[in-house]
């Protein structure tokens, strides 16, 4: 009887611990792609500003737009991680 209660408690503890680890992994893996994407976008923007400094305000506007799209994916995975942790 005591062994069953202890096994039940151990199961609960493992469940809570692993759900925390899964929430952390969600945002960790979900942030890799957008980070690389934002790095590529900004590096191309900087390159083209260096090549053509006159068009720099146009390039800046399009770059901010592109970064917002890429960052949205990271935000989706952050929202899923928050839901896993707090709901």
């Amino acid at each position, binding site marked *: 009887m005591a062994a069953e209660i202890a096994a039940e408690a151990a199961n609960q503890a493992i469940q809570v611990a692993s759900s925390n680890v899964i929430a952390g992994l969600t945002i960790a893996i979900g942030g890799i792609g957008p980070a690389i994407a934002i790095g590529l976008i900004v590096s191309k923007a900087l390159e083209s500003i260096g090549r053509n400094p006159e068009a720099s*305000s146009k390039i800046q*506007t399009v770059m*901010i*737009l592109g970064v*917002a799209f890429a*960052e*949205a994916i990271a*935000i*989706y995975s*952050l*929202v899923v991680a*928050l*839901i896993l942790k*707090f*709901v």
Partner: protein
Amino acid sequence: MTELHISISAQPIFTLGGFEFTNSMLVSLIVSFILILVGYRFSKLIKRRKKTGFVLFIQTILESLYEFVSSITPHQAGKFFPLIASIFLFVLLSNWAGLLPGAETIGLLKDGYHIPLFRGGTADLNSTLGIALFAVFMIQVEGYRSLGAKYFKKFFDLSNPMNLFVSFLELISEISKIMSFAFRLFGNIFAGEVLLAVIAFLFPLFLPLPFIGMEIFVGFIQALVFATLTLVFINIATTSHH
């Protein structure tokens, strides 16, 4: 030691029948009233041609917004400026409302739980979904105003199977725009609130300062991105293809 309480959905302050009035709704209402009051006072002062500091300040904001809109749509800036400026100002003030002193701290105590009275207006997925639905609806309305009924041919092109497939994808992408707008804004602002709560919980003395600075910046950028994306999609929707 006290616990950290973070709720992903906005907490209801009172209920009217089946309708729950949440703290984010309260802040959105207050932000709307402030914008209406400022607009009303500004139009009264402009009519009497008085140039006070307040009038010049509002004019500076409006002129820089107008320049920004005309940098993306040079010829039709006048048609789209009221919509884009309203979206930008409402989202900006709602984002910043969660950073004021009193947000998330002043609250009621309901059977042992602390329910804050004020929470950022856009930190609730319902509010951002509402603004996103409105923005995408206005994109369709502006497309119809510019191109007539031909605008809806974009979504139901029956000429050949390839066009049918592409137009179906366009329809799906319009719906995904709604979700993308809603979740981008909600995710940024809610994650900022969680970050500020955790930092204040860990070390409340001086450490929250750079994070509040970052949240001010993120709130401004997210409002700008929401308005810019709406304007770019309206631009795409109002250009005729052939």
